């Protein structure tokens, strides 16, 4: 006991020399990290910098090869997430760990100790917490009917219900409106003031500067610096993170041409009681311009995207691609008309997890001469994948690497590259940079701009307003299944769009129509 009293005041969590090597890469190389009680601590780094591995070690999902973990001054071994939770560590994952067929309340009950999981009381507590922290949730809703943003709310509320003493958040704001981000930050500051420590992983440097007390920057598995983000600039943080200055996308004025994607009076009934029906959606995207659709997730984006991509058939005339009625065609036939689509889910929809990158290239790029007389041209497929990997800087073992072995951002770069390299006439991208690090995001946005300048009509559906304002020429907002008219970005601002997103849509949209 005496020895313990001589120590300096213990941090809530301290890591010393954490090292974790995988067969091909050292993910964490001697990492030290201190998180004080009540501190909001940012962990910054590019994809592959080792952030995820480090968080998995803290949460007991991965066992480190070397190093020590101290919890309030005591050395601990965290064998599994249950022991992490028992210590008071909660984590909101970037890729959600929810059971899709269960309700919100069931999913939350699964993570709680049996004592806390009583259903009726639990539903009441879910409503309380979600109300208190501005995260609206219906406990009886099934998760498979929910969008990415709503699922994230479930994860956050699930953690908050366990009264965590250390909360890890991985990219939590990427699916929130500006107003909701402010509300979340208030929540987090409130939690921190109550003594809860927060480890905040994000690529949004402005947010980190607005929210966090301290930042630890990782690059290639090592700590490259610890700083007070409030006294740094976004570009100095970016430099620590990627080792050089951030490329700014070159945005020239659009030279819009003829209509390439036309949506006329599209009505789509909801699939299920919790879905959002699309009502009388009209939209046109011309060659050489990028049109953005902003909106809080769960307002009809999924339904609209499925109707546009061909994953769901609608009235033939409701969707026209390059002049041809395409509403009744399936996704493959629409691609024959020149459509390309980057979906919001990468693993399992945009790519087959258990297949190699080469086989995943074939998924949509087969019309680029990769199939002859019904047979796969193996060398052409590998060449297409190899060229995509090279041109888009995908960090992967090569064309034979399984899609599931790539990090989210790298897989996204591969999917974006695969679609763009088909020289589409119309490109639809949903959440193109969700969960993608800052370097890769800039690259993806630049490639969308280049595609636009090459004469492609680009539609971007995103919940990231910064992104939409950065690359779009015109912006529309979707709320409750109704799409507002698209407004040139010069004539609007984040506050106006944010209000439209929050549901003040009809009045505003009517006025500007």
């Amino acid at each position, binding site marked *: 006991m005496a020895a313990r009293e001589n120590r300096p005041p213990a941090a809530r969590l301290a890591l010393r020399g954490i090292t974790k090597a995988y067969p091909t890469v050292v993910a964490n190389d001697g990492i030290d990290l201190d998180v004080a009680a009540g501190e909001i601590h940012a962990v910054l780094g590019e994809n592959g910098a080792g952030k995820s591995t480090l968080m998995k070690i803290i949460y007991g999902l991965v066992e480190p090869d070397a190093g020590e973990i101290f919890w309030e001054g005591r050395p601990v071994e965290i*064998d*599994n997430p249950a*022991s992490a939770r028992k210590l008071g560590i909660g984590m909101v994952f970037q890729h959600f760990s929810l059971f899709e067929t269960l309700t919100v309340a069931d999913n939350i009950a699964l993570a709680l100790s049996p004592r806390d999981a009583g259903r009726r009381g639990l539903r009441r507590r879910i409503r309380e917490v979600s109300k208190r922290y501005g995260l609206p949730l219906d406990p009886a809703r099934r998760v498979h009917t929910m969008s990415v943003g709503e699922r994230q709310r479930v994860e956050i509320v699930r953690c908050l219900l366990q009264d965590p003493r250390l909360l890890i958040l991985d990219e939590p704001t990427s699916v929130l409106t500006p107003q909701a981000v402010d509300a979340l930050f208030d929540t987090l500051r409130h939690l921190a003031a109550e003594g809860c420590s927060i480890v905040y992983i994000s690529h949004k440097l402005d947010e980190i500067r607005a929210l966090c007390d301290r930042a630890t920057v990782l690059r290639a598995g090592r700590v490259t610096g610890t700083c007070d983000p409030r006294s740094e600039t976004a570009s100095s943080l970016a430099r620590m993170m990627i080792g050089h200055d951030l490329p700014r996308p070159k945005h020239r004025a659009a030279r819009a041409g003829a209509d390439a994607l036309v949506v006329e009076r599209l009505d789509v009934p909801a699939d299920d009681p919790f879905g959002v029906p699309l009502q009388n959606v009209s939209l046109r995207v011309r060659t050489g311009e990028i049109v953005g659709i902003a909106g809080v997730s769960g307002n009809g984006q999924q339904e609209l995207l499925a109707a546009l991509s061909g994953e769901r058939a609608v009235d033939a005339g409701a969707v026209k691609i390059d002049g041809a009625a395409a509403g009744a065609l399936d996704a493959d036939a629409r691609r024959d008309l020149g459509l390309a689509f980057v979906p919001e889910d990468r693993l399992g929809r945009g*790519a087959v997890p258990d297949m190699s990158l080469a086989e995943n290239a074939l998924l949509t790029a087969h019309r680029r001469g990769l199939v002859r007389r*019904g*047979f796969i041209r193996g060398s052409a497929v590998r060449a297409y994948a190899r060229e995509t990997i090279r041109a888009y800087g995908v960090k992967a073992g090569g064309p034979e690497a399984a899609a599931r072995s790539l990090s989210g951002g790298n897989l996204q770069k591969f999917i974006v590259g695969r679609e763009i390299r088909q020289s589409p006439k119309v490109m639809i991208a949903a959440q193109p940079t969700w969960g993608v690090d800052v370097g890769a995001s800039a690259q993806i946005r630049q490639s969308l701009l280049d595609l636009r300048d090459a004469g492609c009509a680009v539609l971007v559906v995103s919940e990231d307003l910064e992104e939409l304002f950065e690359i779009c020429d015109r912006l529309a907002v979707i709320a409750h299944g109704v799409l507002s008219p698209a407004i040139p970005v010069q004539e609007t601002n984040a506050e106006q769009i944010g209000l439209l997103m929050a549901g003040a849509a009809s009045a505003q949209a009517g006025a500007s129509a």
Partner: protein
Amino acid sequence: MIRLEARPEPSRLAAWISPLVAAGATVVLGVVLFAALGKNPVAALSAFFVEPIASRYGIGELLLKATPLMLIATGLAIGYRANVWNIGAEGQLTLGAMGAGGIALAFGDSDSALVLPGMLVAGALCGLAWAAIPALLRTRFNANEILTSLMLVYVANLWLSLLVHGAWRDPEGYNFPQSKLFAASALLPNLLPDTRLNIGLIVALVIVAAAWVFVRKSFAGYRMRVAGLAPAAANYAGISADRTVWLGMLIGGACAGLAGAGEAAGPIGQLLPSMSPGYGFAAIIVAFVGRLHPVGIVLASLLMSLLYLGGESAQIRLGLPSAVTGLFQGTLLLFLLAADVFVNFRVRLTRAWIRLST
């Protein structure tokens, strides 16, 4: 407490070793079983696994019985990879035998060289048509193909029974429920002298090779694999779910029908009320023991064939009941499924939730 924990990356080597472990465990269980029945385990194992193939004739029988198994399992595996669960290959086999038998009986004593090819084609088409019923029910009415294909097995057997008891019964057959013996032109040529092995084996091996090319090299086969591995990605790529079901069912049905034709035109040489000792069901086990892979299926069909032969031998030599064949088949599948659990999961013994080392 014992917990099963998913392995992040199941080893491919382990996936291939697991059938061997299952086969080994089945043998060990056999030893225990024989000992419990008061038989000398060594003699019993020898009677079961060695004596049946100790002669040229035995080898011929091994390959003869492996032929329909590998053929059916190959067809089923294509569907299984695409999550199309055709459980009714036994019925499709029966229909194939009926189709082939119908041609053979219609041609009577004709020595046309077209009889045999006609029988094989008719067999494949009849099996395909029988499999089309569950495919239609699935794609039009979303009826589960596992149930419908299985129920149609019993319907098929009743149809065959009706024919061999009625219209197709041999008028000179002393009222036995069986058709006339087929003419020589309606029988598959022998492959290995002094055995019953016929060229059906060659046909089966060619089809196994073709199936491998289809799955690995053709774009249609690729699309079916995508549909099985990631249905949302298949929809994203515009791969039709209905087309996948149709292809999976029809290929499985055609292969099973061809196997039925091979039985009718091969070792049986006529139509009987039962054309198969459960090859259509055993082939499901063969497909999984063979990891849905052509080479694995060929090896697994030899193993399953040996179990059939061993079961017969055990009946004769040891006086064991015929149920011993089904027992070994079931045991093998059970052990395989159990071994697969350990390929995909690891067991962790957890005593305390957390260890504090202060």
